[in-house]
């Protein structure tokens, strides 16, 4: 050792320096502006360009929005009111509000039904979306399909009630037989439910006559507007979940035939645009159904969109399954659980949890894609705008207002869902690190 430190009396700090506030350049707005807007020349230029862009956008859009006319019966009346000034004619939205939301055929006295159904949807979806809510609320979720169906389509209340009871019957049969084997349980459940429905099928008409609780029936064809987008979105996503799970499991199966069936199905569906599948629904599907069966267009479209969504969901879930460590499968095996048990109790609960953000993304994409049904002349939100509204003499020529309204509506829904999925991803992330 050199002698520099030979004597080396330990240097010991005796007192603690209290933390002092950072220098002015390091705090507050000054620092923020310097760091975020003017940290370099290039940055300053970009800031100015950005401000310029915002300014121009504002100068161009604000008067148009602020001058907007909210009360008029036609575009020409709007123009009269504006009297040459630049301004939007939002009156079209006010006047066609109901049509935009519900289509032009849903009976106007019944608008409360889809509205209520929508509110209930939010309520019953929340226990699924937020795992902090009490689990008992899941009962609501389970009941919702029947309530929602009844509210939107109407008809005798006994139809959804017995449908629900049938499912309950199936569930009990499943619970009874499940102990023997999952397959038995499944078959038993299907048989029990089918039997129940078959038997009650005879009772319903009489019952409906004796205890007539019913809402006016609204045929599928009369659904339209944003409501149709929402219906297609929710129905197809919910239906595609179980199918997607089956496909994903199939694709990971060891059995080559089953694996290839699933691979071909998934790749085929993912390889073609949704539009062509809608064409299939529109013009081809009927050829493949038994002669004389008369599926209406909405049903056919739901079938095709569900197939479409399930292929995408299958891929998401496959990712979730692949993310599970192999040890989980082995541990389940070594405990003696059989395949259905291992999947149901161990693998799927975990895989699905990992997949939720992906599933939500698919759901958002699918919800946006429901607008494509306007191409096969269904009157969803976009179809309403392109068809009856723009075609009407009164509103011929209002583009911006209507499309911005539609875009805004979709934006609100999709943005919130994707924010939710990001929130969930963060949530899961921390959950992992725990």
């Amino acid at each position, binding site marked *: 050792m050199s002698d520099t430190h030979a004597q080396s009396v330990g240097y010991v700090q005796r007192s603690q320096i209290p933390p002092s506030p950072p220098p002015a350049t390091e705090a507050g707005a000054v620092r923020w502006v310097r760091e975020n807007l003017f940290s370099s020349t290039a940055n300053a230029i970009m800031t100015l360009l950005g401000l310029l862009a915002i300014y121009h956008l504002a100068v161009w859009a604000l008067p148009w929005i602020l001058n907007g006319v909210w009360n008029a019966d036609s575009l020409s009346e709007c123009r009269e009111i504006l009297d040459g000034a630049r301004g939007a004619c939002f009156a079209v939205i006010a006047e066609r509000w109901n049509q935009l939301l519900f289509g*032009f055929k849903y009976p106007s006295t019944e608008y409360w039904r889809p509205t209520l159904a929508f509110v209930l949807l939010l309520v019953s979806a929340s226990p699924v979306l937020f795992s902090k809510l009490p689990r008992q609320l899941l009962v609501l979720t389970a009941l919702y399909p029947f309530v929602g169906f009844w509210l939107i389509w109407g008809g005798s209340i006994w139809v959804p009630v017995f449908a629900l009871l049938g499912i309950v019957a199936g569930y009990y049969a499943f619970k009874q037989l499940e102990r023997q084997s999952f397959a038995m349980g499944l078959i038993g459940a299907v048989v029990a439910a089918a039997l129940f429905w078959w038997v009650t099928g005879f009772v319903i008409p009489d019952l409906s006559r004796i205890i007539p609780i019913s809402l006016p029936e609204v045929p599928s*064809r009369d659904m339209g507007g944003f409501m149709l987008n929402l219906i297609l979105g929710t129905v197809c996503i919910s239906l595609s979940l179980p199918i997607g799970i089956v496909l994903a499991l199939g694709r990971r199966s060891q059995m080559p035939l089953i694996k290839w069936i699933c691979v071909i199905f998934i790749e085929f569906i993912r390889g073609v645009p949704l539009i062509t599948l809608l064409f299939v629904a529109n*013009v081809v599907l*009927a050829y493949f159904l038994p002669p004389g069966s*008369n599926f209406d267009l909405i049903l056919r479209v739901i079938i095709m969109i569900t197939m479409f969504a399930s292929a995408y969901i299958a891929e998401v879930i496959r990712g979730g399954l692949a993310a599970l460590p192999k040890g989980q499968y082995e541990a389940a095996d070594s405990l003696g659980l059989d395949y259905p048990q291992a999947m149901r109790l161990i693998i799927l609960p975990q895989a699905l949890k990992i997949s939720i953000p992906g599933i939500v993304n698919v759901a958002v994409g699918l919800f946006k894609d429901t607008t494509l049904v306007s191409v096969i*002349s269904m009157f969803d939100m976009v179809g309403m705008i392109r068809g009856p509204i*723009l*075609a009407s003499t009164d509103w011929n*020529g209002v583009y911006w207002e209507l499309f911005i309204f539609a875009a805004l509506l979709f934006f609100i829904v999709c943005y919130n869902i994707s924010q939710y999925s990001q929130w969930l991803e963060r949530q899961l992330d921390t959950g992992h690190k725990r």
Partner: protein
Amino acid sequence: ATLDDVKARGTLNCGVSTGLAGFSAPNANGEWEGFDVAVCRAVATAVLGDPNAVEFVPTTGKTRFTALASGEIDMLARNTTWTLSRDADLKFTFIGVNYYDGQGFITPKALGVSSAKELDGATVCIQTGTTTELNLADFFRVNNISYEPVPIETNAEAQQQYLAGACDVYTTDASGLAATRATFETPTDHVILPEIISKEPLGPLVRHGDSEWGDVVRWSLNAMIAAEELGVTSANVEEMSSSTTDNPEINRLLGTEGNLGEMLGLEADWAKNIIMQVGNYGEVFEANIGESTPIGLARGLNAQWTDGGLLYAPPFR
């Protein structure tokens, strides 16, 4: 069979266009109105006795045939031209003609065009999936002039594109042009060119292979035409049917004599109901597209044969 289906269902699914003023368009209350719509209502009245027992299914030029073929609709009443290939190849049965038409052009007056032959280099809006699309190609090829087609799905969009100046000319059936022009802010700024470049017999159609149903639709239309010829109107039909008249054909038509209804599988008073609730051909024409309406079409070819037109209902016997 379709007839039984319709009866069982209690409503008639009838394909109409997505909106063509005077022919088929929902009014402010969402009720469908128009000349084509009346045919649907007539059939519904004949079969179900209720002109409102119709579910109108809007179709575009492109989707109409698939809608019919797939069974989504029971009949199509949508200014559809009767052509051989549609009959023989697409396997549909046209049950008659409710409007004799031809393809025309509309163009802004400001362009100063007076004949379709002067349209060299023009941009033309057309509805796709129609005969007009094919006629147009033929017309320009035969006359050896060029054009630029702008394919469009619906009449409404075509109208928007045309009015915005995205095309110089809009071409479709002359009746459609008149109807469309009537909805313009200033119809007088636009001229319909004199050339009519094709024959467009427009009529309702049904699927091949169900002649029974075809007969019902065919004779519902014929009943309207015959009623006009025989002078039966919605105003006097009640009176005429209350007792047998001197004219046996009227009696057969209104079901007070013979069993024509039964032959079709309908009630005896089917035609009476049509005339009472929908009106005869002339009444429907006048109410929807006639000269007193903004569309203002003259009867022309669509007058009764007795008046020099082509309308000629086969005998009710």
